[in-house]
Every structure is written in structure tokens, then in C-alpha cells.
């Protein structure tokens, strides 16, 4: 009897393992996240898919990823005391590996005192100014990029998980409106490149779906990591539109909407992109 149970259990375990291997979860790299029903993208793909093989390899190599310098700086800052309160992130949040898990996949979130959204970079700076009594980091500073990467990295492999609810819905709507609005002298909307023509060549560049599951990303063109907010500015400039400021309501709303479009995509910070 005991032997029978053992054998049955072994069989059960084996079949679970095998079915798991056969149905590898779609990762947005080799297999898309498939959407049913009312979603603008029937298939969701990470920008990874449209990168050159050597760019993908640079991202995948744990030691070669050029953003590592920033990740390490972020990790060091996590436990570094700062500000007049002489506090570190760690004192409230303990080990980032546990406490920050999944955080990036649901940001930006509605922040009640502001009556609007707050994104990850803004949240880090809010912690600094409010609780540590330290100076806010600048948007393009190595410190803010490093800390944001370090925090976002703790969600790697977890699916983007924006839930539209009563609180964030008005901001999601504004982000959506922005996404479909033509702008600039070239009169193009985000949707033109990233919904209608993703995967296709614009001169030598392959257009992506404009997902932000890998941000802050190490962009080869920048030679350093950058935020999705910086990327938005770049996109606007390319269509000869006056960009908004990083962290502006317009861009934070857009960030929420863009992350929602990528729901299901595994997080991959810091990604490497051309």
C-alpha cells in the first residue's frame, strides 16, 4: 500500500513537471502574451524581440550587462544612510529582495496625498525628502537610475500587473488619450509606430511595441541607463513635438497606460536596447 502511494505520488510529480516544461510560459521574447477581448494588442511582445542578437546577448549576460555598474550603485545606496534623519531605505523596507518584489510591475500607482499618480522614481524621491530628509535625486542622475534599477530588478520575471480601478482610471484614460493623439510637426501619435507598425523597419530601426517592462533600460544610444520618462521625451522630439518634463502629469499618466498595455510581460530590468 505504502509503495503504491509512493509510486502514485512520483507519477503525479513527474506529470506536473513534464506539463510545466511542455507549456513554457509565454515570455514576450519567443512567445507573445496573448490577449483576448478588448485590448489594443492581440499579442504583446517585449522590445527584446526586436533587438539584434548581440544586443539581446548583452542583456542576458549577467556579467556583461553594461547597466550592472548602476545596479550595484543602487544596491549600495539601498543601505546607505542619508539626509538629516540619517536613514537608509533598508531601515524601513528591510531586504529589497523581499520587500520590493513585484513593486515595479504595478507602478505608477495612485497616491492619495497628491490626488494623482506617482511613479517609481518619484516614490524613491518622496521617501528621500519626506522620511530621510535628504535631497531629491535628479531624473538623469546615476543615483536615481541605480536605485530605480535595483528596485525594479526585484520584480524580474514577474508579469506587468496594472489593474485599472476607480482610483487610477481617470489617469489611465488621460494616458490613453495621449497615446492616440497626433502631435508635433510630423503629426504622429504613439500608436502610429508602436501599435500599427511594430516589428517593421523605419529606415534601419525596427519599431517595437514601446513596452516599458525593461525600464530603466540601458540604451546603447545613450551610453547609460535611462527612464521611460526620458524615452518619452525622445519619442516626442523625434516627431518634432515639444516634449513634456520628466515626471510631468502627462508622462506619468502615459507611463501607467503604457505599462497596462504590457500587462503579462515579464519584467526584465535593466534591459539593453539600441
Amino acid at each position, binding site marked *: 500500500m505504502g509503495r503504491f502511494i509512493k509510486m502514485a505520488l512520483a507519477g503525479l510529480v513527474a506529470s506536473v513537471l513534464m506539463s510545466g516544461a511542455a507549456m513554457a510560459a509565454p515570455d514576450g521574447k519567443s512567445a507573445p502574451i496573448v490577449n483576448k477581448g478588448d485590448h489594443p494588442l492581440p499579442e504583446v511582445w517585449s522590445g527584446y524581440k526586436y533587438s539584434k542578437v548581440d544586443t539581446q546577448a548583452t542583456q542576458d549576460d549577467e556579467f556583461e550587462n553594461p547597466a550592472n555598474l548602476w545596479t550595484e550603485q543602487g544596491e549600495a545606496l539601498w543601505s546607505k544612510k542619508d539626509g538629516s534623519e540619517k536613514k537608509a531605505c533598508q531601515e524601513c523596507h528591510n531586504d529589497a529582495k523581499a520587500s520590493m518584489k513585484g513593486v515595479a510591475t504595478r507602478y505608477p500607482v495612485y497616491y492619495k496625498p497628491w490626488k494623482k499618480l506617482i511613479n517609481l522614481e518619484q516614490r524613491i524621491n518622496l521617501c528621500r525628502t519626506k522620511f530621510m530628509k535628504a535631497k531629491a535625486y535628479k531624473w538623469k542622475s546615476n543615483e536615481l537610475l541605480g536605485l530605480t534599477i535595483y528596485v525594479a530588478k526585484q520584480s524580474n520575471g514577474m508579469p506587468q500587473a496594472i489593474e485599472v480601478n476607480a482610483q487610477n482610471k481617470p489617469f489611465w484614460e488621460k494616458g490613453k488619450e495621449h497615446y492616440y493623439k497626433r502631435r508635433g510637426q*510630423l503629426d504622429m501619435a504613439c500608436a502610429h509606430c508602436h501599435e*500599427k*507598425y511594430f516589428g517593421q523597419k*523605419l529606415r534601419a530601426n525596427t519599431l517595437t511595441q514601446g513596452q516599458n517592462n525593461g525600464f530603466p533600460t540601458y540604451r546603447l544610444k545613450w551610453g547609460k541607463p535611462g527612464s521611460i520618462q526620458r524615452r518619452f521625451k525622445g519619442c516626442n522630439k523625434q516627431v*518634432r*513635438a*515639444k516634449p513634456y518634463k520628466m515626471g510631468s502629469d502627462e508622462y506619468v499618466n502615459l507611463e501607467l497606460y503604457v505599462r497596462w498595455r504590457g500587462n503579462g510581460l515579464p519584467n526584465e530590468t535593466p534591459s539593453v536596447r539600441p
Partner: protein
Amino acid sequence: MRLSRIAFLFCSIVGLTGLLIQPGMAAGHKKKMMKKMAPAALVSYKISDGPAITAINKSLTGKAGDKAAGEKTMVNKKKGNCIACHVITKLKAKAAKNPKKYSQMGLIAPPLDGAASRYTEGELRMLLVNAKVAFPDTIMPGFYRADNLTRVMGKFKGKTVISAQDVENILAFLVTLK
């Protein structure tokens, strides 16, 4: 002000056929702003029906286009940049020899091969000036327009992507693509 209102009404009632459009004209209340930006006045043109789509049959400048100059504008990333989206097979040999200037040709839009067989010269002029008049949902920018745009970056405000003569030059090249 009155004229633009009439033009608007006319547009909604009659449609685009035979409508005289003067893109350089601004409504009265915008006069002050326009003066500050001092944009060069745009050439006015008349839109009429072509066999396939709407057309601008008359040259914008009255001067013949220079097709060699047109080709240069078409590959210039800061000007026409047509090959960002359109393949021109005729230029492929040149592109292979001079990849920096011609870069890779994009595949977003239909190849321009045979464009002059599909459209009349007037229709091609319309597509260059403002393709949205014929195809409202297109990604293609209007290359000779400066009105009704949103948040145009300061240095491009009130300006067109290319000049009226650039349009004619590109057209001189396009009509060779039969």
C-alpha cells in the same frame, strides 16, 4: 476670421472638392501670435478631384522641379526622409554604394516603385503636401503644412517640413517612377 469660418462651412458641406485652401492664413485672434513667430507665408493651392484621390494639379511654385535635387531631399533624414518608410528599388544600387547617406530603406509604407502609374502628378503633389486629406488615418506627415498641429517644437513652429520648391523637386523625381 469670417473667411476661415466660411471655409470651414464650405468644407463640411461641399467636402474637399474644389475647395480653396490657404494654409498660411490664420484666424484674426491668432494674428498677434503669428506675428511673433513670423512664419513664411505658405503658398495657397486648390484641391480638386483626381481619378483615384484628391489632387493639387497646379505647381506650387510655377517653376519646374529639379529631380536630382528632389532625390537629395528624399533621402535627407532632416528633410523628406521618404526612404525611412518607402523603398525605392531604383535607388538600391546607389544605397549599396553609399549606405551612410541612403541608410536602409524602411518597409512601413508601400514601395514608391510605380507610384506615377498609380497616381497622377496632381495626386502625388497632394500626397506630398498633406497625405491626410486623401488618407485621414495615415502615419505619413504632411510635408507642406503648418496648420492644425499639436505642440510643435519651438524651432519648427509655423514651418513646413520642406519648402514648396522641395515638393516640386521631389515630384519631378516621383513622376519618373512608372
